[in-house]
């Protein structure tokens, strides 16, 4: 409350006489005509109408509804009057307000422009950053100049100065241009780089040229940092997916020696389980839709694990120690699973949605933005990795699994029920594949042949890492992921993939046992 009062006070002191939001503007904003909406937004920004901020945020969050006799804000079934923000009874017929993507962008920018008057320096800095990548017109520039003149916080002021300098690069006054060229030095933005380059190509004044070149060099080096970090991030993100895909295989193949060609189909089952859970939530618990992934993960694990149990009991049980034959039999299983899914869900891809909290991106610098879903998947794969290594290294079950895989006869002799352990271990590997499917459903298409796309990759990771080595799988996934993204930046996605496959083929020649070979008697 105090903040609000202070904010309002600041707004009244610093802004031009703040015009309050009126019904007409609201009606125009909620009207649905994109051009009209944009004009209304510009008018709001020109009037520095801070009072419009809550309404704009509601508009962005899709809380605004229209009816014949007015505009309302609907939040958790409570209706508010759009102007007074007091509770009102909602009319029966409500219509959603449509906002196209470009309008949403314009709303975001308007919010940012208005937030320049926020009392909190962090909020102001955030809004300046958002304005950096926006197209600025005269009105916005005036607003920025004004904000700069009253800004006390040096970081925010510098940022504002840079934005203004960008337009001043085109000034006819030599001194203004020179100052702008110098002011842009600290900027980290691809747009500024392009603007500087463009100016440099037409600039005739020697001193300004020097300033431009210097700023350009500075920006390029700081941009390079962002770009490198971006590549590393996407590499790590790819690695986390590879790791998820390979972890289950590291258990079934690495520990049990079963070549499970149906592993990809286990991931597919996990992804379809996510799809089913999503639909259940949408139908029965629409209010808690954003939590559906929390329910989907255990469901996918259990479903895939159960399918794994069935496969192990019916097929794999009879083929232990005959690796090539498990390869062929499980390939038959994978065909059956694929066709089953096709029969139940159809051959087309199904739609799996990111929950709201996973869409959007974390803004780090102008050229480094991290999509939330990728960040979540990295964390998820870390969690799964920790879970698996804990299970294998610290629990009694893990001890038994390791015992059976190292020396089945000896394990039997000391009373381990080895056939039960086999089933559990295979179910565990399948369940982990199911978890991978949950993650994959958030970044790619979910269709019957989802598994086929990942099977070669997952084998690559396991073979490269060295059989029976969780750590090896982690390093291999990281290496392949990051190297893959670096290649991709150099030669494109397909050639990068080919390059990695060739690398794998060559690598196995050199180290047939993978990165982390088991020594001694276990080898071969």
């Amino acid at each position, binding site marked *: 409350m105090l903040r609000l009062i202070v904010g309002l006070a600041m707004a009244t002191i610093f802004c031009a006489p703040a015009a309050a939001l009126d019904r007409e503007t609201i009606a125009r904003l909620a009207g649905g005509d994109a051009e009209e909406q944009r004009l209304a937004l510009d008018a709001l920004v020109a009037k520095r109408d801070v009072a419009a901020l809550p309404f704009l945020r509601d508009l962005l969050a899709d809380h605004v509804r229209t009816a014949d006799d007015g505009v309302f804000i609907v939040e958790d079934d409570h209706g508010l009057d759009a102007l007074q923000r007091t509770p009102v009874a909602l009319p029966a017929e409500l219509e959603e307000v449509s906002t196209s993507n470009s309008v949403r962008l314009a709303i975001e920018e308007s919010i940012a422009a208005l937030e320049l008057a926020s009392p909190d320096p962090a909020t102001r800095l955030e809004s300046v950053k958002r304005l950096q990548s926006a197209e600025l017109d005269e009105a916005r520039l005036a607003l920025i100049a004004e904000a700069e003149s009253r800004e006390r916080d040096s970081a925010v002021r510098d940022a504002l100065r840079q934005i203004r300098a960008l337009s001043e690069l085109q000034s006819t006054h030599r001194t203004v241009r020179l100052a702008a060229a110098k002011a842009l030095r600290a900027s980290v933005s691809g747009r500024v780089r392009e603007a500087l380059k463009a100016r440099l190509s037409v600039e005739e004044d020697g001193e300004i040229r020097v300033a431009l070149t210097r700023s350009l060099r500075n920006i390029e080096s700081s941009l390079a940092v962002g770009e490198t970090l971006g590549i590393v991030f996407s590499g790590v993100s790819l690695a986390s997916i590879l790791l998820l895909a390979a972890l289950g295989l590291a258990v079934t193949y690495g520990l049990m020696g079963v070549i499970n060609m149906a592993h990809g189909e286990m991931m597919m089952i996990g992804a379809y389980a996510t799809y089913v859970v999503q639909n259940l939530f949408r139908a029965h618990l629409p209010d808690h839709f954003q939590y559906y992934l929390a329910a989907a993960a255990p469901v996918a694990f259990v479903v895939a694990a159960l399918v794994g149990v069935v496969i192990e009991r019916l097929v794999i049980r009879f083929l232990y120690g*005959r690796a090539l034959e498990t390869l062929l039999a499980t390939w038959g299983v994978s065909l059956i699973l694929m066709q089953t899914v096709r029969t139940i869900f159809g051959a087309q891809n199904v739609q799996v949605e990111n929950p709201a909290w996973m869409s959007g991106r974390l803004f780090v610098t102008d050229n480094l933005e991290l999509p939330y879903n990728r960040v979540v998947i990295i964390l998820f794969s870390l969690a799964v990795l920790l879970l698996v290594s804990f299970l294998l290294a610290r629990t009694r079950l893990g001890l038994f699994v390791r015992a059976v895989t190292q020396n089945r006869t000896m394990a039997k002799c000391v009373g381990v029920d080895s056939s039960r352990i086999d089933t559990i271990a295979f179910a565990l590997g399948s369940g982990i594949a199911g978890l991978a499917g949950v993650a994959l459903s958030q970044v790619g298409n979910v269709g019957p042949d989802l598994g086929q796309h990942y099977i070669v990759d997952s084998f690559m990771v396991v073979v490269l890492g060295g059989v029976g080595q969780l750590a090896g799988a982690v390093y291999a996934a990281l290496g392949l992921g990051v190297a893959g993204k670096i290649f991709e930046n150099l030669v494109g996605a397909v050639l990068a*993939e080919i390059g990695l496959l060739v690398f794998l083929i060559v690598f196995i020649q050199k180290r047939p046992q993978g990165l982390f070979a088991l020594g001694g008697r276990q080898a071969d």
Partner: protein
Amino acid sequence: MLHVPPSPTLARRLFDRRGWCAFALGAAVIFIVAPFANLATAEASMLHLSDASIALAGKLFCYAMLALAMDLVWGYAGILSLGHGVFFALGGYAFGMYLMRQIGHDGSYHADLPDFMVFLDWKAFPWFWAFTDHFAYAIALAILAPAALAFAFGFFAFRSRIKGVYFSIITQALTYAMMLLFFRNETGFGGNNGFTDFKRILDYPLATPQTRIILFMLSGASLLLLLLVSRFIVTSKLGRVLTAIREAESRVMFCGYDTLSYKLAIWTFSAAICGLAGALYVPQVGIINPSEMSPAASIEIAIWTAVGGRGTLIGPLVGAVVVNGAKSLFTAAIPEYWLFFLGLLFVLVTLLLPKGVIGLVDAPRWPRIALPFPRKERAS
């Protein structure tokens, strides 16, 4: 590694007097009966063999060659390749280049270059298209290109003593990488669509029954010839060393054999067979595209071999014909159940018939009615 005991009795029996009779019968059907039934009989006649069945049979012969090639490396030398589709497709592409050139100016653009090159705005043939307008060169290329790739790949792989599952997985990586490569337009092989719309071969139109029957007979002849050569190989010393390698490579090495060259020889020969099969397949089917290199296509070759029975030479041919015949039937009648059938067939064969369909013939307790010829007592 392999739990299937070698079955010398069967291989020998298939080439005893009765075996030779069956062989001669097959040759007669391929070279006399089928052409007669296709060309010389009336359409409505009972004896008439439709063009479609001739085309299907020609295709099956090519698949059977693939299965034979797979049997040589997998059944006899114990090397499971999940990349034989690459060799097949390479042969197909090599001969496809010749067929593309035979189209001449009859393409949609009436240009010197194949349509897809015109479409990509290329001005001249890439270097590897040189001489492909010569028939003999194209045939040689179709056989030698896969053999060369196999030799290079095999040399490094066998030298590093990669075997078993590792070898299977890197052959799978090989086929996957090649598929990605051939999917690209700039590779110069028509990208996604591959080669198609062939018009003629050696200036004879492809669409006539006469050309079709000749291609059919050529495929049949190649298959029979390769069967004889393979039989010679596996019964020779080379074949025996290979079987020994399959059973215990280390011991063979300790006996002083250079296992690398044995494996490399059979591996390269097998790839050459695939290349020839590809070259015969493409004019009969009328299309070659990168999907032939998908890992799944290569695994299917292994399926045919396993279903028929590994290490018997004749079994894989039966497997290829049975599985692909079933595929033709299923995909026409109930397409949605084909994958169920294939998957189930494979699981069941692996679990219940490790020796494949042919193994039934050899089974000691199998009812005698099922045997096409009297059993000989085993030596042991």
